[in-house]
């Protein structure tokens, strides 16, 4: 059928008819709406702000979140790579006969106060680490400008990294140790002797 409708003669304004929507469509719509709502209900992750695809549940994301200790160590690694890596190396091996290693060192596993004292004021050799003598190296007061939390992070990192197997360190411990260092009245860098004399525990 082909009608030629012309623009030239204008029919009256259109009106709308009375045909009803079929009931079937309504039922399909309700059904699909139900499926959709069910689907949204299943996969909405409780409308949490922190669940992004491909993860699906708030619990899942919470289980994946690293523990406080892991975060502390990860943060310590960043601080280490800024402040320590130039001398002690990324693998903690130190350098030559001047800079002692941190990997496998009995010092880093030892008393926290001693570590804080050394980072706070610096240390002039000689020092014995892991059965070897290290001589001329002089450590600066690298930890002096760090906040207690940052120092705790970097010490925790060093104690746990390279199979050192030490424990993480809290901010409280660092603050206590700092107080002890300040009370000792040490002005320049330590030597092992003065460190021992000030009452810090020296590893065997």
């Amino acid at each position, binding site marked *: 059928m082909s009608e030629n409708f012309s623009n030239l003669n204008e029919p009256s304004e259109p009106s709308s008819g009375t045909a009803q929507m079929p009931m079937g469509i309504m039922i399909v719509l309700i059904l699909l709406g139900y499926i959709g709502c069910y689907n949204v209900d299943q996969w909405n992750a409780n409308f949490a702000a922190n669940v992004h695809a491909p*993860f*699906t549940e708030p619990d899942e994301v919470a289980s*994946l979140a690293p523990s406080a200790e892991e975060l502390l160590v990860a943060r310590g690694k960043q601080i280490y790579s800024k402040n320590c890596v130039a001398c002690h190396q990324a693998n903690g091996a130190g350098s030559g006969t001047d800079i002692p290693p941190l990997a496998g060192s009995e010092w880093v596993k030892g008393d926290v106060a001693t570590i804080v004292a050394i980072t706070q004021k610096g240390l002039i050799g000689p020092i014995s680490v892991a059965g070897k003598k290290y001589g001329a190296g002089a450590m600066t007061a690298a930890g002096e400008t760090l906040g207690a939390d940052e120092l705790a992070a970097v010490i925790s990192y060093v104690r746990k990294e390279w199979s050192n197997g030490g424990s993480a360190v809290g901010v409280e411990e660092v603050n206590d140790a700092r107080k002890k260092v300040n009370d000792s009245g040490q002005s320049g860098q330590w030597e092992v002797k003065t460190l021992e004399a000030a009452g810090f525990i020296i590893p065997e």
Partner: protein
Amino acid sequence: MNKAPWIFLGVLFTLSLSWWGMVYGPASQLAGQSADKGDGTAVLPRVGLAKQGEQVYRENGCYYCHTRTATGGEFGYELRLSQLGGDREVTDEVLGENITVENTRLIDLAFEFKYVVAAKKTLDDANKALADAKEKTPELEDAVAVAEKSLKNSAVSFKEVISNVTEKTTDQNEKDTILFRAYGLSGVEIKDKALMIQLGMGEQIIDEHRKIANEAIIKLTHGKAQWGDIEDMVRGLKTRAGAQFKLQPVVIDWPDVQNGVALRQSVTRDFMHDTHAMPGVMQLGPNLANAGGTPALADSNQFYVHLYQPRLINEKSAMPPYRYLFRKIKVNAGETSPKNALKIKGKDLVAGYAIIPTEKAEALFEFLKSLRTDALPEAPIVDNPKPADDQ
């Protein structure tokens, strides 16, 4: 629907529904989002040049051809158990049938380790008490005898389990490795070298034991597990068995991660400090979600040359050149060009001229450097084992 005002009200109401869901809801939810990462550090806003760079990125419409969105993919889970809790029955119950026979035996061995060491400790304590006691009473001697018996039983049971676990293994090193993994899993501290040798550990590697013990991780699933499969196990291990473990997502089919585009999917907090959030329209050029973490931006000169004329770096590149972000300065004979002039193979780009990035180019560089996909609590970095590791 013939009443004119009703149409108005209806339109207002209906539009307000999608407004509520797509505008009000997300905006109010994300407005209160904290920058805190949970470890005392925060997602930091951009400052200085990097912040200005965002405006350069916007002005030039970089977001049309580069996305900053790393999409998610298919992944599975590995549950990496590093230390067992105290209760063997609960652990067995929680782990259920999710683990391989081999791993079950290893866990058995680790518990035997716990028992034998505990028995040894009891015996030592009893002996010490006996030695300290001024008057040796029969009760104390009985206690020692009981402890001795218990240690003996434990050691016998331990040896049995060892032989079970290592029955197919002839290599002493392998046996030692299994032992030390169990030792690491048990989480006990043994200072007594003699006891360790007595328990069957090779003397030559005792000194390295720490390293092996620290790597004593057993993978309880094989990467295919979904959250629904392991949900109960993870909860049980955490709350009831008291074990130490790490749940590690592992890539199965995740193109953006496997192609090195990003380390994880993009999340809202990657955009939280943006003045204009620009996730991108088309991925015509490389995805910039992790631009700052790629080697392409390690060398600023390389980047500037690419921006100045992409086809100097890659002949077939379809990126337009951005020469107007650079200044061209005449260099007289005998003078050296400024330090920041663009160089290709150590020479000036255009002989006799120095091409110098303007502040806008520098800002853009800093902005791109700031785009990273570091781990966030809601977006852990997924493990992407290289094909070589699969074997």
